[in-house]
């Protein structure tokens, strides 16, 4: 045969030999050479008979065979692994449970991060192109931004949250939605499931109002009827036509805080949308419009931000704004396509706590499992040594041991993920104490599943690889020899297992302390005195404007209701109020200055509460100085206000209080809670630019202001004015009633309300106790979580320590036997074993304290905004390590006692 003809054969043979090297070690050892030989003999006849096709077939045959053999070995390993795991149920169950809890907690942490921070707007394509203004703006400003078609392919503006009184089935339901520009849906690039969306024509005022409803609204309230388009719905007492249904899963541009089930154009007349009263679309001082823009390709968010900033500055110059010369950015852009619009640089701040704690728990669980694996592997040292000496490859043995750990990890991963789904489902149901329905979908999606898979794999490797490597690194001779397990250990040497144990102790202590701080902080909050008597106090919310009444009609109605309710025998006091104690306020605060103090006046800040004149009496808040509100104070132009005790203490110690005059505008009303969307009051009456002068007529006792009860805020109380009737806040106006104990006060009040006007729809009826409980519920849930995690870490650490000690005792049986034979007492032996454990515990405690200190510093930002934490609470700092140490030592003592019962004769014989 010519060389040319032989070439394919030679090449094929070379390939074949290379492939044969890919077989698993054992197969290669046993049959590799022979296989190649046979092929060398057979390849010529095959080439002659079948040509190239025969060579291809030959190569295909081995190419398929190689993975099959590998899989067969894997299958063998898995069966062997399962058998080994079944033989030691104790280890298997403990490892499964602790790892699945660890994986569950880590995945929960990720799921929360994912659901809150990383999740994109549902139903919106290309969300990464969207940017939004961090703070709402005015409509004229928006119109200027809109003109920048060089930056944005499309923009939208909307008002949120907007409550709509929708007449459904005879009663008025409070449904939340947005007031939107016509470009809303086109900017978000969504298509209607039914009908159509708004178009430019709707911008012209005067036409019959049209609305779009969400898919779920259509399903729940319109019976998923395909003829729903064209139907008329009464909204805020006015008929509106449904022109379209939104796509499935789409709940608006900010479904986290501002879920939208109804969309109405901003061009509707004011009676339907009280938010738009007082020429809201023309005023520059009413900054209540959220804006979202879709960036053109090639335009970065930074460039957009800078350009918009320039627009604002130009407008300030044009209109001669007072602070046009002030420095600082006017415009900040955030990602508009995420459920929670947080800037990239701010994200770590939110994700830190969760991921750190989740990671810690997983670390502890892994250390535990690794330690147990090490112990098991050490037990099998002789078996492994024999197999190695008989020719088994180290790689194969490592793979076998790894398979076991991966099996445990896989089982734990499945259990852990199931647990995660359940826990996140519970968490998603937690109601937040906001006036509008805040809903975050925390259920794990495929991101979380991938994360769980990744974590599971890493876990299996983490706790399996090192023990596997260590076990197979055995120096064969001492392992094979009888008694080869003696290692007279000096406790100073840091073996791998001891190192892991230290890790675990330190991690557990850190976890315990950190979660303790968080939990303690919340406990402190919940236990604080509220500052008023919350018993027998009831709250009923009303929103006549959204039942179809005008502001003046509403005022008359309220007068009547209040009068009738006060006359009820079961009612001892009643008031109307906008603000309610212990609630997430509708506004953040006001900035005030001393009236007439000249240019150098100091600006001061206080929380604002708008209350009815009998508020203090009804709530049981004592007036410490001066008087409460009177009827005259509710007239337009009246200037009376009441301040809180704390405000006086902060700003006016030793000064005259009563009769003091202060000036209030709303330049940048801000405050701790203003950062949270939906707590900012956008009403014209509030945001109007006019500065007013007020006079202090009374001082009230302090009341718990928000989550951080021990952190006080200065507060100013304003009386209700006509504007509050015309434009009620998001929670409507609340009727607060103090009743006689043991009577159904709410029932009688509701009867009076319907007797006054059957069209009024009371909502959110609750007792003060329920209000407080609901307010605290999210905190309570958090406290529970922290405590649970801390306890879990504690248990894990104890179990781990017990295991290590038990193993140590078992291992040192021979040594102990010798010592006892040489005259050591039982107590000496016990002391020997306990000493080693005690050193580990102490070292772990020290390291844990150091980690805790670092952890607190890392998380201090989050800590102090969530709970009042006395940074180094002595009780916790001493108590926690003590608790952990004692538990750990007890855990060690039990197996250590076994060492005392070792029979020296048996021990010496067994080796």
């Amino acid at each position, binding site marked *: 045969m010519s060389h040319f003809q032989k070439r394919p054969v030679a090449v094929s043979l070379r390939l074949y030999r290379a492939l044969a090297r890919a077989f698993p070690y054992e197969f290669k050892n046993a*049959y590799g050479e022979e296989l190649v*030989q*046979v092929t060398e003999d*057979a390849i010529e006849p095959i080439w002659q008979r079948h040509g190239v096709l025969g060579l291809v077939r030959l190569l295909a045959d081995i190419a398929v*065979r*190689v993975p099959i053999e590998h899989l067969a070995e894997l299958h063998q390993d898995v069966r062997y692994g399962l058998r080994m795991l079944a033989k030691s149920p104790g280890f298997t169950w403990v490892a499964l449970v602790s790892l699945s809890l660890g994986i569950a907690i880590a995945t929960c942490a990720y799921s929360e991060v994912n659901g809150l921070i990383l999740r994109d707007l549902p139903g919106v394509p290309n969300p990464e192109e969207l940017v939004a203004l961090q703070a709402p703006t005015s409509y004229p400003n928006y119109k200027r931004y809109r003109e920048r078609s060089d930056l944005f392919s499309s923009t939208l503006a909307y008002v949120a949250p907007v409550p709509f009184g929708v007449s459904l089935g005879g009663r008025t339901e409070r449904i939340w939605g947005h007031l939107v520009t016509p470009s809303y849906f086109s900017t978000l690039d969504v298509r209607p499931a039914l009908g159509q969306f708004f178009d430019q024509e709707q911008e012209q005022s005067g036409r019959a109002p049209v609305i779009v409803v969400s898919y779920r609204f259509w399903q729940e309230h319109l019976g998923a009827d395909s003829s729903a388009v064209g139907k008329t719905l009464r909204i805020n007492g006015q008929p509106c036509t449904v022109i379209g249904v939104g796509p499935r899963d789409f709940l608006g541009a900010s479904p986290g805080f501002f879920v939208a089930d109804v969309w109405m154009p901003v061009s509707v007349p004011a009676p339907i949308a009280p938010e738009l009263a007082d020429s809201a679309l023309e005023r520059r001082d009413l900054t209540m419009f959220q804006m979202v823009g879709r960036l053109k390709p090639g335009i970065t968010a930074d460039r957009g931000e800078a350009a918009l900033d320039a627009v604002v500055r130009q407008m300030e110059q044009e209109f001669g704004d007072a602070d046009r010369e002030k420095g600082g950015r006017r415009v900040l852009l955030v990602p508009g396509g995420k459920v929670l619009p947080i800037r990239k640089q701010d994200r770590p701040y939110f994700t830190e706590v969760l991921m750190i704690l989740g990671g810690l728990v997983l670390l502890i669980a892994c250390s535990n499992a690794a330690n147990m694996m090490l112990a098991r592997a050490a037990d099998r040292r002789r078996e492994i040594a024999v197999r190695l000496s008989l020719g088994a490859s180290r790689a194969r043995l490592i793979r076998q041991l790894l398979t076991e750990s991966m099996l445990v990890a896989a089982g734990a991963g499945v259990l852990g993920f199931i647990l995660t789904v359940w826990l996140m489902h519970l968490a998603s149901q937690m109601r937040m104490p906001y006036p509008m329905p805040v809903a975050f979908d925390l259920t794990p999606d495929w991101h979380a599943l991938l994360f769980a898979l990744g974590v599971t794999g890493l876990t299996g490797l983490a706790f399996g690889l090192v023990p596997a490597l260590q076990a197979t690194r055995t120096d064969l001779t001492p392992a094979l020899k009888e008694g080869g397990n003696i290692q007279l250990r000096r406790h100073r040497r840091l073996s791998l297992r001891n190192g892991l144990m230290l890790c675990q102790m330190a991690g557990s202590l850190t976890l315990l302390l950190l979660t303790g701080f968080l939990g303690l902080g919340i406990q402190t909050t919940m236990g604080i005195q509220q500052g008023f008597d919350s018993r027998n106090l009831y709250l009923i919310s009303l929103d006549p404007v959204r039942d179809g009444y005008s502001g003046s009609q509403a005022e008359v109605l309220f007068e009547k209701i209040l009068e009738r309710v006060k006359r009820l025998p079961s009612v001892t006091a009643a008031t109307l109020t906008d603000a309610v104690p212990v609630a997430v306020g509708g506004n953040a605060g006001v900035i005030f200055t001393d009236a007439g103090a000249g240019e150098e006046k100091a600006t001061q800040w206080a929380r604002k509460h708008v209350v009815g004149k009998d508020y203090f009496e009804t709530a049981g808040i004592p007036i410490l100085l001066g008087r409460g509100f009177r009827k005259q104070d509710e007239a337009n132009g009246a200037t009376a206000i009441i301040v809180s005790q704390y405000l006086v203490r902060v700003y006016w110690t030793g000064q005259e209080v009563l009769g003091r005059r202060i000036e209030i505008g709303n330049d940048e009303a801000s405050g701790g809670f203003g950062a949270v969307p939906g707590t900012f009051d956008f009403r014209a009456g509030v945001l109007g630019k006019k500065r007013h002068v007020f006079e202090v007529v009374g001082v009230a006792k302090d009341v718990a202001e928000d989550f951080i009860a021990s952190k006080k805020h200065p507060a100013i109380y304003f009386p209700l004015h006509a504007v509050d009737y015309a434009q009620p806040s998001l929670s409507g106006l609340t009727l607060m009633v103090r009743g006689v104990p043991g009577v159904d006060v709410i029932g009688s009040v509701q009867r009076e309300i319907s007797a006054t006007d059957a069209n009024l729809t009371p909502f959110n009826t609750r007792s003060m106790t329920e209000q407080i409980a609901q307010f605290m519920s999210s905190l309570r849930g958090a406290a529970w979580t922290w405590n649970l995690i801390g306890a879990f870490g504690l248990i894990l650490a104890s179990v781990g320590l017990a295991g290590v000690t038990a193993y140590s005792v078992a291992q040192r049986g021979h040594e102990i036997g010798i010592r006892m034979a040489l005259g050591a007492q039982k107590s000496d032996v016990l002391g020997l074993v306990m000493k080693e454990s005690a050193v580990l515990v102490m070292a772990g405690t020290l390291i844990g304290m150091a980690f805790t200190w670092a952890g607190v510093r890392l998380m201090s930002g989050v800590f102090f905004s969530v709970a009042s934490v006395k940074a180094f609470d002595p009780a916790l700092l001493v108590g926690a390590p003590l608790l952990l140490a004692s538990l750990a030592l007890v855990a060690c003592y039990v197996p250590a006692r076994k060492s005392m019962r070792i029979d020296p004769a048996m021990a010496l014989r067994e080796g």
Partner: protein
Amino acid sequence: MTKRVGLDSFLPLKPHWFHVLLSLADQEQHGYGIMQEVLERTDGKVRLWPATLYGALKRLIDEELIEESDTRPAAELDDARRRYYRLTRLGRRVLAAESERLEDLVRVVDAKRRTRRAES
């Protein structure tokens, strides 16, 4: 009785396995020899490719149907590089059982054919 149960667990036998066992029925053989014997016996219709063959050999050894032979043939026939295989007792019985099963099948097919011919 247990042996019967053991045999049944092997049936029906994979075709490749059957051919390998059949090759070793009369004599011990090495891998290449088995390949050739099967090829000739089936007139080229069945070719055991090397990797598949050795995969089968490995499994047959694991199942104790064949074993490596320690006796070598006569010097002039022997190839020192090669390993020889032979049937085990179990292997022989399994081969017999499979053959019987195949014979039964053929009998059934024959009977059916006769019936059809008789009917038509």
